[in-house]
């Protein structure tokens, strides 16, 4: 056994202990992924990826560009189907769900897209109202959506932008509005796909603070996909390093940053 494998195994062992303690302290896992494989032709993106996200936890998945982070997160919400493997969200196996049940489940999952993904042809208000149209039953019979839209916008400090178009917003504002849209249905899990990519350091820090405050306020479970070490350091309770399609190493930020494994060290080199 070489030092690289030893380092990795040490991290995994530590992670398993951490997982066990989290499972005990935080209760059940809200997301489970076991042995997930996904290939695009000869490009094997996920090669048996395993992951569990516990209730109320902030889990960061780090990996290089093209390592399959976004593919993994898209498999989680049914935007992509894995070639094989088991994916369970809030006790429901994704691959067995019909369209309606999947849509209902999605109302409990918020997804912050890398590029914000605001609808260009709609105002900020309409963007926020859009998910509410489909999930009226969850929100109750609400004729006036203004209070909910305002609350979501106030959470991200952008109440004054309600009538603006996305084209009139800066990159950081778009990301915050997208976060507000994610929050409007009060999800139990929030998936963040590269929440700080393309933002300047100050705005990135603001977004991270916002994510923390949302987590504290609503007690959501968060899965954060990033390659931003600073973001991972501030927000993670547990981390998974995704290398060659597998969870190469797991542990807390301090555990992984102290690892002597060459592949793990590469993530934390300044």
């Amino acid at each position, binding site marked *: 056994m070489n030092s690289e494998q030893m380092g990795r195994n040490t991290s995994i062992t530590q992670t398993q202990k951490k997982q066990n303690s989290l499972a005990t302290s935080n209760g059940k896992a809200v997301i489970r992924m076991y042995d997930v494989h996904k290939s695009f032709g000869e490009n094997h993106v996920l090669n048996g990826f395993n992951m569990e996200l516990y209730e109320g936890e902030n889990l960061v998945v780090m990996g290089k560009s093209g390592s399959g982070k976004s593919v993994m997160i*898209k498999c989680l*919400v049914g*935007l992509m189907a894995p070639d094989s493997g088991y994916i369970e969200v809030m006790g429901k196996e994704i691959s067995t769900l019909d*369209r309606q049940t999947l*849509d*209902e489940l*999605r*109302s409990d*999952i918020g*997804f912050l*897209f*890398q*590029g914000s*993904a*605001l*609808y*260009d042809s709609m105002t900020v208000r309409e963007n926020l109202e*859009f*998910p509410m*149209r*489909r*999930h009226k039953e969850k929100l109750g019979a609400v004729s006036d959506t203004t209070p909910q839209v305002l609350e979501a916008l106030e959470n991200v400090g952008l109440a004054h932008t309600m009538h603006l178009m996305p084209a009139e917003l800066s990159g950081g504002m778009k990301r915050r509005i997208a976060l507000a849209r994610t929050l409007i249905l009060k999800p139990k899990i929030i998936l963040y796909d590269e929440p700080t990519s393309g933002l300047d350091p100050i705005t990135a820090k603001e977004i991270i603070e916002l994510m923390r405050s949302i987590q504290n306020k609503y007690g959501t479970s968060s899965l954060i996909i990033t390659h931003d070490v600073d973001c991972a350091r501030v927000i993670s309770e547990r981390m998974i390093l995704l290398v060659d399609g597998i969870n190469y190493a797991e542990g807390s930020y301090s555990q992984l940053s102290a690892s002597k494994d060459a592949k793990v060290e590469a993530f934390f080199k300044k």
Partner: protein
Amino acid sequence: MVLVGVTGFIIGLVLTLQSRPTLIEFGAVSWMPNMVGISLVREIGPVITALICAGRIASGIGAELGSMRVTEQIDAMEVSGTNPFKYLVVTRILATTLMLPLLVVFGDLIALYGSALVENIKGQVSFQLYFNTVFDALSFGDLVPATIKSFFFGFVIGLVGCFKGYYSKKGTAGVGVAANTAVVMASLLVFVVDFIAVFVSDIFYEL
């Protein structure tokens, strides 16, 4: 609508101006309204309008949906529980299918007006006489197949635009490709549908 109107008007003018010398040579200039009316309603009006819409609408839909795909707006819609296929594709195909026949009728009327204008100026034919002759010459056998095939033209234009945009490959280059191929394929399919429509209508109506 302006584009279809202007194009229809010019086609009516040009068709009449170009046909006049030949018809005069054969002493058949009085057949001008019949000839122009039938050719516009049966073939030129629907096909030209469809081609204009293929250029304007198919490319627009292709670019819009392609850009939504690239910027993950379609994924966001799906995650929010809305079926993007129903919300974005079905509505657009319905709109093009239902609106194209109306545009064809509008384009035909403007083209006939352009033709009547030339006849009024060059042949001293009144508008009333011109349009009476045109409507006398037209029968259901001219109008029904033309209207039915206009629905199919609209369907094809919407379908191709949506397909190319919805399944465009990632990247901004993909948006351009989607818009471009949507126009090319929609235009080509308009002619294919036209051929099939004429072939089928030939079975039901004596052309």
